[in-house]
């Protein structure tokens, strides 16, 4: 393991060390830039509210005139809750829905804890594509922007290679890391995990996004970035190994997640992996996302809750 000395010295007390000299002209330029940015941050919210109001009035006018259903800008809401094990059945958790009723969810992959996100809105979500502005290393596999016929699950031709201007709906760095041991059942090598995966999830009706191995106290950051409600989570992962093929060993590893919930688009970008949270956050902050305009409808005739694991797993 390489330990750069500069990296070891994070967050040191340097109160007594003076550096630099006052430069009034430079300070004035910095103040001007900062104040301009703060003013600019205030304006777009006001402009967006005005645009939304204008759009709402226009849509109402269209409805009135033509009597047809038109797309109305709606908001998507996200709520996190820690699930409690349903003592009755294995691999089943209890969720409290919006009415406060308990709902039993069969997730199929049990850990000690689970964090669930209900993500819902009044209108169907729109499909999105993304383009990374920064990555710590190249991806090993990707799926390009989806086709206009709405084929979400197609794969590219094997001789297709991405270009700099390409957009994606799935990106992963799945490169092999050094093995740290074998699984306890002796089947296959274990490595330190997938460095990163970037994929979108959507606010489908009654879909519950579940992150296994995490609890409420693992939410490292919960904040708002423009349109996104952002959760940064450090999720423990238990690994049971036989490092030398003999004695069983339990180690705890971590997977980190930066989840970007779009409040206007109904999509969630999951940037997760074994890389440190600040690296994943860097990827997230530099990621461009675009709305394809295609509505996604995932029929739910039974009306039941549908759990969907968002963990990044390597088999």
């Amino acid at each position, binding site marked *: 393991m390489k330990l750069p*000395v500069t990296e070891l*010295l994070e967050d040191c007390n340097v109160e007594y060390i003076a550096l630099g000299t006052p430069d009034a002209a430079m300070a004035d330029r910095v103040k001007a830039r900062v104040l301009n940015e703060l003013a600019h941050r205030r304006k777009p919210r006001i402009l967006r509210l005005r645009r939304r109001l204008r759009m709402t009035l226009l849509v109402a006018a269209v409805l009135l005139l033509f009597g047809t259903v038109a797309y109305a800008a709606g908001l998507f809401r996200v709520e996190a809750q820690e699930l409690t094990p349903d003592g009755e059945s294995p691999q089943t958790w209890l969720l409290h829905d919006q009415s406060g009723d308990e709902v039993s969810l069969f997730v199929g992959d049990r850990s000690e804890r689970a964090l669930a996100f209900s993500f819902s809105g009044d209108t169907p979500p729109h499909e999105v594509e993304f383009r990374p*502005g920064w990555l710590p290393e190249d991806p090993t596999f990707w799926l390009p922007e989806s086709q206009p016929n709405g084929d979400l699950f197609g794969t590219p031709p094997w001789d297709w290679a991405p270009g700099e201007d390409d957009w994606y709906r799935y990106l992963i760095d799945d490169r092999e890391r050094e093995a740290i041991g074998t699984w306890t059942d002796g089947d296959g090598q274990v490595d330190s995990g997938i460095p990163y995966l970037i994929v979108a999830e959507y606010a489908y009706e009654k879909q519950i996004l579940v992150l296994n191995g995490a609890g409420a106290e693992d939410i490292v950051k919960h904040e708002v970035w423009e349109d996104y409600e952002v959760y940064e989570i450090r999720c423990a992962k238990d690994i049971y190994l036989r490092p030398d093929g003999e004695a069983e060993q339990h180690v705890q590893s971590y997977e980190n997640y930066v989840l970007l919930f779009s409040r206007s688009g109904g999509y969630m970008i999951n940037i997760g992996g074994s890389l440190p949270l600040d690296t994943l956050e860097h990827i997230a902050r530099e990621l461009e996302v675009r709305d394809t305009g295609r509505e996604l409808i995932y029929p739910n005739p039974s009306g039941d809750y549908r759990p969907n694991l968002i963990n990044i797993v390597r088999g």
Partner: protein
Amino acid sequence: MDEKELLRRIRKGDTDALQQIIDGYSGYVYAIVKNIIQPPLQPEDIEEVVSDVFLRLWEKAETVDADRLRSWLAAVTRNRAKDKLRALHLSLPLEEDVLDCAVEGPEEDALRREAGRIAREAVGSLPEPDRSIFLRFYYLYQKTGDIAAALHMKPAAVRARLSRGRERLKAMLEERGIGHEAACH
């Protein structure tokens, strides 16, 4: 300057208070950014990063301890400057000064954190001026010539004390079981 009062006002949205902080600390922040990113970047790039740091202060004022404002600014400045270099795929300074320890595997994260804690303890245990020299060089990225000038020493003396600091750091890591002697160099 009463940092506590200024931060209190910043938390309430007072931009005049933010401007006073910028007047007092922009030179400090500028110096750190310049140490990290110039060359190859230009003065306007430095000022962009400096501005980002004070915007971050505006956003995070609730969490900043007024008694450690300078340290907070230094930490954020380092991160922002390094992000700038990474965004342009440029190499970071001093990354080649590494301790190479034979520890691998899923415990790397925990060991890295423990090594960081031990490193801060090791630096804290250094006598002056060794501690100042070590922090100026490895934390604030100041060049040995500038450190020598600031502390009225010869550059060779600064380099010798840096070497001593690194040896002490390695010894403390080894004492605590981070790596082993044969592999830690």
